[in-house]
């Protein structure tokens, strides 16, 4: 967070920052809508809806402020990013989330392990997936058997 922004007057509006401003405004609107439609009374003046309205109000103001900074190009310069590693990691997490209760902890987490290693440029998958599954299985034994954490079991875990 040490990048400096060359705040030249001629910079074009920062479209990504404008999208953020819109997202903040939408968040504020969702809070207002959800609070306004909530059932259940609040006889007192400062009931359960006061704080949400206040926060939504502030978020609206911050959204407007963000628009100003985006137009002036006040956001820090961003490094060039590669999208592929992000997809690998997000895919790994999604795979683990969806498979956790089907294949058990070790296989699901092993896939996450291999996908993350792949995101950092380590392959091939036929090697990293087995490594990940074995490691996750060891982790499962330590934490589920040793520390009695509830970690979902699958076919592999039921072997012992």
């Amino acid at each position, binding site marked *: *967070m040490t990048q*400096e922004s060359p705040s030249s007057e001629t910079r074009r509006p920062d479209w990504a*920052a404008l999208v*953020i401003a819109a997202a*903040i405004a939408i*968040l504020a609107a969702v*809070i207002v809508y*959800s*609070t306004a439609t*909530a*059932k*259940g009374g*609040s006889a*007192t*003046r*400062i*009931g*359960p809806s*006061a*704080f949400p309205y206040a*926060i*939504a109000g*502030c*978020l609206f103001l*911050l959204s407007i*402020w*963000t628009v100003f*900074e985006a137009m002036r190009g006040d*956001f*820090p310069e*961003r490094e060039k*990013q*590669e999208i592929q*590693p*992000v997809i*690998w*990691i*997000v895919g790994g*997490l*999604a795979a683990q*989330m*969806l498979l*956790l*209760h089907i294949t058990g902890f070790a296989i699901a*987490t092993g896939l*996450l*392990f291999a996908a*993350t*290693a792949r*995101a*950092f440029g*380590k392959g091939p998958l036929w090697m990293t997936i087995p490594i*990940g599954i074995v*490691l996750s299985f060891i*982790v499962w034994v330590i*934490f589920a058997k040793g*520390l*009695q*954490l509830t*970690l979902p079991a699958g076919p592999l875990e039921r072997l012992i």
Partner: protein
Amino acid sequence: MDSFTLLAHGFAVAMQPLNLLYALIGVTLGTAVGVLPGIGPALTVALLLPVTYKLDPAGSLIMFAGIYYGGMYGGSTTSILLNTPGESSSIVTALEGNKMARAGRGGPALATAAIGSFVAGLIATMALALIAPTIVKFALSFGPAEYFALMVLAFMTVSAAFGDSTLRGLTALFLGLALGLIGIDLQTGQARLAFGIPDLLDGVEVTTLAVALFAVGESLSVAAAHRYGEEKIEAIKGSVWMNREDWSRSWKPWLRGTFIGFPIGAMPAGGAEIGTFLSYSVEKQLSKKPEEFGKGAIEGVAGPEAANNASAAGTLVPLLTLGLPTSATAAIMLAGFQQFGLQPGPLLFANNPQIVWGLIASLLVANFMLLVLNLPLVGLWVRLLSIPRHWLYAGILVFATLGTIGANPSTFELGMLLAFGVLGYILRRFGYPIAPVVVGLILGPMAEQQLRRALAISQGDPTVLVHSPIAVILLILAVCAVVVPLIMRARGKGKVLSSLAASED
């Protein structure tokens, strides 16, 4: 009873073999995560929360505190040998420390950092023990209005006062506050922002949010930026012992660093980074050999390292006495207390003195352990730095999800982890600070409670918030924390503030 009697009782707790073991595990883990770039004490404590759920509260808290202190020690090793700060509070150490290592004086640099951390940890923990009862006595007179004002002040200093943008700091804070709204309202039982999803009724777990923002967000951001090329680790050349000149140039910076770091940590003023920057510039000005600064001046390692440990101890002052977290790590430690049904604050000192004083005493014990762990065993920690990045981050994500699954093995919780992880990546990408989100999530509902309690007592009269002079002073300070930096940035002094940016931990 005075502090020393209480502290003696605390030592009786801390010296129990099991608690010594917890402290040892804590400092070892803490040093390891401090050394490893990419994971900090906040994340480690968050990961361990679900694991310690079934353990004894005193032991777990002692372990968390050990992690916190250990992280501060370990960060310096990475800074000195790798020139990549292991923690945000070790950025300054890298300036002089890495130069010393390149000049073949890595040993004395590590030694002055470790001994300086020890001296600072010792003095600052004693100061914590001495000052805490006084603040507790003072805080007992606080009503809801004062607490609310105090929390507003903490919000503003954590989010807006430091860092490179008031806007982005405040946005991060309000994001955290908005997330804190989710769930059942504690006073009326009404569900808010749950959208009919039963999983959301309990609210967003602090640990899930912290793990997602720190571990998943950080992994995504490092992977996307391709910042995992070969890094050069400086070998430790020469003896780790300091010579006479090193000692005579180090002891004053240690003491000055301590006295700069402790109050900054103790005031609700954000992370440990600020003290280290101040200490560095003080040493630069006072040094008899200012020409050495930038080329490996030992004062530039000794002072900031002492300051960063002292402010870690300082941060515990508002956390323990007022229940007010001023850094991400402190916020997660607060969640740790709450997990065991303990609420830090003046009442904790009255109701659970054995836990509070046992914790303070074990900090002193942990400090001794860290000196031993870090000086003779430094070579062992250095080896951690040679773990390839792909295995390191794959392992981090396995443990990050393990913690979440262990706390609540539901697909929905993992979905939240993924969503907040992507959020963490976006926040980093656009230069938003992370700590205010976490602090907002945990402190927001508490601030709302205090506000509504204050207004309930006054029967809805809002002027109750400014009835006491203490509350007025705190609120004025909160306004200053936002306005002064804005003016400074407008006048082109923003660079000073962004160099004081409180980033991750």
